């Protein structure tokens, strides 16, 4: 007699359990999906808000270099120039520095030292960008003005890159500060890519009589090259979008000059400086359009970087 009743409660319990599972799945899915939603919302909102500028200037916005809020004529070229030049400068310094450090941390240093140093590198990555800016403004800028730039002028001054007055503020200083800021990202991602290389690869090379360095450089690094490339792209995307530190040292002058000593301007910096005080529909929307350009620039580079990083870590973990 009691059997059907027991079965009944079990069935009810099972049903509530299933509804619970479905509800839990739906709720968590809603939040997960909101990530996609927010991203689309971002594109949509920037697209809408930049409409007046897009209609007025069309593609010329990307190739002209006037920036005149009074006559309402806007072109993004000087800002793209400053953004790209400072980021490339940053990578020229941070790639060797970051890759070298990653090799040391993953391949050569004893575990204890490597862990401690990795922890410090992670702290370096956690420092807010405005702090980098503060230090750059009061230490790097004066140093570049009185020592760095005069030195470059006296040694490499025959190049057009190193001509003009030493102001301290400018593309070169911004690039240097950015390089310090991107190094931790390059280190931590390429270190992970190097660590994902199977041990057998190293052992085989060492067994054939290769030195430690030859093993690292000819076997381990090529094996992890996609991940390393990914880390560089990731660093590049960070550098392109970096705002505060660059704004404080780049000089904020929308000019395109061959000299790295000259002050410049970056997309993020002009947004930081002018957006809150911009008035007039076209001016504001031109700034939003700059933001849109920056968004697409970083998302494409990030997209490549993520694909490469996923490809290497998967390759390593398969073995």
């Amino acid at each position, binding site marked *: 007699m009691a059997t059907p009743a027991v079965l009944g409660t079990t069935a009810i319990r099972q049903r509530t359990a299933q509804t619970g599972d479905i509800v839990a799945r739906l709720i968590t899915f809603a939040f997960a999906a909101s990530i996609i939603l927010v991203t689309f919302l971002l594109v949509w909102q920037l697209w809408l808000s930049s409409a007046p500028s897009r209609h007025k200037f069309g593609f010329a916005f990307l190739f002209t270099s006037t920036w005149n809020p009074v006559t309402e004529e806007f072109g993004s070229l000087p800002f793209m120039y400053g953004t790209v030049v400072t980021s490339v400068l940053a990578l020229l310094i941070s790639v060797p520095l970051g890759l070298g*450090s990653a090799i040391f941390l993953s391949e050569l240093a004893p575990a204890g030292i490597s862990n401690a140093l990795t922890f410090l590198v992670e702290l370096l990555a956690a420092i807010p960008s405005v702090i980098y800016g503060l230090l750059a403004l009061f230490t790097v800028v004066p140093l570049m003005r009185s020592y760095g730039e005069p030195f470059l002028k006296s040694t490499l001054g025959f190049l057009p890159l190193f001509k003009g007055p030493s102001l301290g503020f400018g593309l070169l200083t911004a690039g240097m500060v950015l390089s310090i800021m991107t190094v931790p990202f390059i280190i931590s991602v390429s270190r992970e890519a190097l660590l994902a290389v199977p041990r057998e690869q190293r052992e085989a090379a060492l067994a054939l009589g290769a030195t430690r*360095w030859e093993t690292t450089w000819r076997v381990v690094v090529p094996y992890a090259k996609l991940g390393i490339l990914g880390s560089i792209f990731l660093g590049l995307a960070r550098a392109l979008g970096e705002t505060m530190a660059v704004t404080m040292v780049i000089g904020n002058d929308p000019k395109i000059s061959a000299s790295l000593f000259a002050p410049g301007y970056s997309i993020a910096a002009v947004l930081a400086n002018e957006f809150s005080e911009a008035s007039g529909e076209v001016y504001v929307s031109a700034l939003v359009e700059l933001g849109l350009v920056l968004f697409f620039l970083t998302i494409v580079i990030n997209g490549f970087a993520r694909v490469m990083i996923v490809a290497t870590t998967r390759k390593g973990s398969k073995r």
Partner: protein
Amino acid sequence: MMSGNLIWRKSVNAVMLSVTALFTVLTVSTLFLILGYLVYYGGRSLDWNFFTKLPLPPGEIGGGMANAIVGSVEIVGVAALMGLPAGFLAGVYLAEFEDKMFAPLIRYIADLLNGIPSIVVGLLAWTLVVVPTRTFSGLAGSIALSVMLIPIVTRQTEQFLREVPLSLREGALALGASKWKTIATVVVPAGSKGILTGMILGVARIAGESAPLLFTAFNNQFWGGGITQPTASLPVMIYIRAISPYDDWHRQAWAAGLVLIGMVLLANIAARLVLARGVSVPRA
């Protein structure tokens, strides 16, 4: 001849090994340089007024940043209230519910969202909040920061839930627990240390952001009227003080820098060393 070649190879080895070590030392030493400067300049400028007084107009000596400290706590607190639960639940979905169709896409988009420049996220909050309400507000800043926080927390929650052994889940399910009960009472508690670490690191990261606050929360010289009004924050204050021409303001920028870095590093060290001993925290 063989030995000459070997000597060459060994010296290349030694030189390159030392170069990589040198690079590492160079990189790490910038951390100590930064901390050293901040402690030296910031420490000289830090006093009680900094924590208790309001900012003074340019030219007047003294004053503090009490409103910016409180403002930062407000903005970051509200951002955390919105971003932490949302990111956590999204992470639970990615780790626990099998979904071959959407999960990879969501994961990828979350990583992309994480890489978007913070100033662009500020533009989003500006269009969503500042434009319709016609005023800068702390809330707009909070929304911008929570948009940055969600993908960080999502990915870290997912990562730490994945590290929970499958046998724990199977045990709970075999005892008759439903899936959501297994997640809520077994899986999440097992991964809670790591998840909490990820959350602290995420909040520490957004607490130092100034770019997305410049044209959302804006700034305020006074106590302001709560989260719906322009609100001062420590990072924005550092920026404004640092680029000003006044020595006394520079002094305050250093003091604020020291306070900010103290909070951020303390959170990082606490999370990484104490809470997550031995847990490897992925780069956000």
